[in-house]
Structures are given as structure tokens and as C-alpha cells.
């Protein structure tokens, strides 16, 4: 039913979305912790920077990433030289762009979950002998699970459809960097691509819908288990 190129676009989208969530989740939990629990100067500024991808045009994010992570960008050149990782026109670039774009979504979800935790439970853990790391792993993290899960799933669903930042950083190379939305866009550019576009759009819609729905179901189940 799908052509090879369409399959590869779907597969690539899934890989990019999965990897981007895997990369940004631990970082997002750390950042959420900083913003929610730690007092430091310039917190408002940090908060703003984290949320920038939500309001900046995705093309601008892509452009900034290109400046920093392109072959001649300071970070890109360094990583290329030391580790052989390239971001321009590669799958890694697509993952990076998607991770940056979906980062604030995860941070927001995790932060919300963190703020709803009863701090009294952490105090109880302290009186029972749990140090900071132990406490985080054994109490805070499990209690945040609903938020982390729903944040991850929403980010995954959004990551499947990331367009502007991806196309700017890694262009639209079929089989290489062409994810679902890029394939849809390419199909619409061709005079005979209407049907292809419709098929891919349907897949896109289904995945996004299923993701959100799953996230909601999971959230409900976990919350029920936690007895809230």
C-alpha cells in the first residue's frame, strides 16, 4: 500500500521522535528540577530560554541550530572533529532539531508533576534515612511518573510532525532526512502527489491522535494506582 520511500519516511519519523524523546527526557527532568526546586539568580531568564522553542518560528530554531551545530558552527565543528558526529543533513540533525523543539513540552509536563508532589512525603523519606539522591529515585521520581509519561508521549507525538526546524537544519533528502511531514510537503509540491499526501497525512493524524489518547489513558491509570 505504501511505497518504499513512504515507508522509510514513516520509519524515520518514528526513529527521530523516539530518539529525540530519549535524549531530551533526562535533561528535561533535570531542568524541570532546577526551575521548580532550586532558587538561583536569573531563573526567569532560564525559564524564558527553555520555553523559546514554543514561540519562536521553527525555522529560526533550525537556523540557530545550523549556526551552532552546522559543519562550520563552533559546536558542530568540535563534535565532528572529536567524535565524528555530524548534524547538518543527517538523521542525527533531525533528532537534535526535534529534541530542541519538543523540549519545552516535556519540561512543562514534568514540572507540573513535580509541583503536585506532596513535599511532606519527601520529608518522611528523609526521616527514614533517605539522602537526596535516594529520595529522588525512590520517592520523587515514581510520584512524577504520570507527568513524565504523558510529557514523553506528547513530545513523541509532536516530534513525529516536526517540520520547520528539521527542514532548515537537515533539508529534505528522501530516505535520509525526509520524515513524514517533509514527505507530505514534498508530495504536495509534485502535481501528482495529492494521493500520497493524503495517505501520509492520514497516518500522521492517526499517530498523533493515538499518542495523545494513549498519554491520557496512561496518566489516568498511573494516577489511579497512586490513589489520587
Amino acid at each position: 500500500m505504501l511505497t518504499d520511500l513512504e515507508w522509510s519516511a514513516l520509519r524515520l519519523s518514528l526513529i527521530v521522535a523516539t530518539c529525540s524523546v530519549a535524549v531530551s527526557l533526562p535533561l528535561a527532568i533535570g531542568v524541570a528540577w532546577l526551575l521548580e526546586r532550586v532558587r538561583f539568580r536569573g531563573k526567569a531568564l532560564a525559564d524564558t530560554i527553555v520555553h523559546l522553542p514554543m514561540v519562536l518560528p521553527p525555522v529560526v530554531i533550525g537556523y540557530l541550530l545550523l549556526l551552532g551545530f552546522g559543519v562550520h558552527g563552533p559546536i558542530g565543528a568540535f563534535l565532528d572533529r572529536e567524535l565524528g558526529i555530524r548534524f547538518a543533513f543527517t538523521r542525527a540533525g533531525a533528532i537534535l532539531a526535534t529534541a530542541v523543539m519538543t523540549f519545552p513540552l516535556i519540561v512543562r509536563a514534568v514540572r507540573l508533576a513535580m509541583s503536585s508532589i506532596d513535599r511532606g512525603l519527601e520529608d518522611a523519606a528523609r526521616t527514614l534515612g533517605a539522602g537526596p539522591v535516594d529520595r529522588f529515585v525512590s520517592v520523587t521520581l515514581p510520584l512524577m511518573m504520570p507527568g513524565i509519561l504523558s510529557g514523553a508521549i506528547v513530545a513523541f507525538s509532536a516530534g513525529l510532525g516536526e517540520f520547520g526546524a528539521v527542514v532548515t537544519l537537515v533539508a529534505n533528502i528522501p530516505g535520509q532526512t525526509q520524515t513524514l511531514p517533509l514527505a507530505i510537503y514534498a508530495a504536495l509540491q509534485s502535481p501528482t502527489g495529492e494521493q500520497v499526501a493524503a495517505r501520509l497525512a492520514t497516518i500522521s493524524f492517526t499517530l498523533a491522535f493515538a499518542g495523545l489518547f494513549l498519554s491520557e489513558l496512561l496518566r489516568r491509570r498511573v494516577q489511579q494506582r497512586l490513589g489520587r
Partner: protein
Amino acid sequence: MLRIKVARQLGDFRLDVRFEAPELGVTSLFGASGTGKSSLLQAIAGLLRPERGHISIGELTFFDSEHRIDMPVQDRGIGYVFQDSRLFPHLSVEQNLRYGQTRSRGRERRISFDDAISVLAIDQLLERRVHDLSGGEKQRVAIGRALLAQPRLLLLDEPLASVDDARKDEILACLERLRAQVPVPMLYVSHSLTEVVRIADHLVVMEEGVATATGAFREMLSRLDVAALSERPDAGVVVECLAGETDEAMHTTVLLFQGGALTVSGLQVKSGSFYRVRIAARDVAIALAMPIGASFQNMLPAVIRQLHHRQRGDVMLRLQVGDEFFLAAVTPAAVARLGLYEGLSVFALLKSVALAG
């Protein structure tokens, strides 16, 4: 010895407490709501940092502002039973109970898992989820969790506050068993005299952020200078008694105390066991001579040791009966009519005697 000195400003409220209490047994922090009892517990546990002070048990110092000692909460080994139990909702009852136990390495083991669940009668709950427990069950599990962390000191912050009356008795019975079986010093915060009467060995009275009186529990109850106790409508003493023989035909039992005996009827007591008996001041009447043909079961020779006019208008008498002290509340008119004075020998007529537990 438990040494507590804590000074800390909390908004408009100033906490400035100092007292010492023996390590063994239950020390009750007694006072109305809002007198800083919970804040004091938080400071002892390390959850609230005093501006100045000293907190130690025996040789072990947890906090000392002069010597810049401030042991982290997790290293103190001070168990805490919170008013709202604070069980971990993502863990089962058993996992909750084991949480502190697995983190208690290096401390003297005072109670085993099996003993804890049997004393607290929670052996049937182990598989349950916290969410499904009743308020009383939650509190018993919380006590078990704190105990199994093998604490050097156990803090209990009104553990019965969120429990219905029927369940309170169960938990108090558990605490009594604990006091008898496990040598953990306990600090028990309460505003209820009926709870305190059952389990306290030592009493610290708190008023507006300050410890106003401290001493052995039973002696404190018979003092007339501790307004928080003597001005209460239910003021009275607790006498430690050894149950003697029961007269089957009359359903009466003799309870022996230092220098005297009480006869009680209708109480479930076991011969040879110790009981705490509560005698309220309003249940004690005074006669100058042994009444003839009176229905009182207990008419004991007594000496008036102290007379004290209470704010509520009546007169409180401190009576010596054998080696114990009783309180009696009488009207000023009675004092005048009978010509009562300190040193006078009288008879104490007890209308009622209740078991405190």
C-alpha cells in the same frame, strides 16, 4: 537524657523551648493547638532549623548552634509519625514498612519486622495498597514504618488526630504495648489529656511556644501551679495501682497503691497487673469525719496539703492519701463551712474511679 533547646521565630510566633527529659519511656508534649508543639518536633527531626539551640540524646548531639553541629535529617535516625501518616502511595504496605528498615544499617536493632507487625496488628495488611487503608490502619502502618527504621528517638505528632474515636483506642493500645516491649524513647505530642493519661511517663506542658512546666507525669497532674492542667474542667490525678483480689459475688476488685487501696466495681482488671486509674477532681468530695451510711465505695483518710482558688471560681485541694496525691474540687462555700485549711486531716470520698488504660 534528652536535651532540647530550640529558639526560632516563625512569622509572629516565637518558639523558645527548653526542657530535659529522661531517655526511657514516653515524654508527652502537652498543650493547646498552636502552641508550637509540631514545630518543635520538626526542629528535633531536623526538618526545621532552629536559630539557636541544642538537641541531643545522651552523648549524641544532633544540633548545636554554638558548636555548629547540624546533622542532616537522614543521618539523625529520628523516627517521625506525622499527623497525616504520609505513607508512600506508590508502594505497598510492606514496601512502606521496609523503606526505613533497609536504610537503618549501623543502628542498634530494637525491633524486628515480625514483632512490629504483630504488636501493631498489621500482619493482614502487608499486601494492601496504601490507598485502600482506613485512617486507623494508615496510622498504625506509619508507626510501624518509623519504628522499623530502628530510630534512636520516635516522634509522634498527634497520631490520633485524623482517626475516628473507635480506632483511637486500638492505636493507643498498640502504643502501650510498644512502650512496654520496645526500648525506644518517644516524644508524643497531644492536646488530649485522655491520650496523655494512658501513655505518658513524663510531661512537658507547652504554652505559646514555651515549655512552662516539666516533670514526671503523675506528679505533674497533682500540682496546682500548672494552670494548663489544674485549670482544666477535667483536672485530676492518675494513680498507678496493682490489682488485687476480686470479690466474685460483689463484682469488686481491690486496687493497691502506695500507702492505700481503692475498691472498684465493674472494671475489667486482672489480678497482679498494673493499671493506671484516673480520679477526677470533681469526683472527689470531702468530709471531716468518716460518714456513716454513705454509698461511697471509697472513703480514704487524707491530709489537705494545699488549697488553691481556681480561676473558674471553685477551690482545688491537694490531698495526700498514703504516698499519693489526689485533687478535689470543692466550692468556696464548702471551704468556709467545713473550715478547711492546709494540714487538716479529712476523708476523701470518691464518687468515681476510672481506668486510664
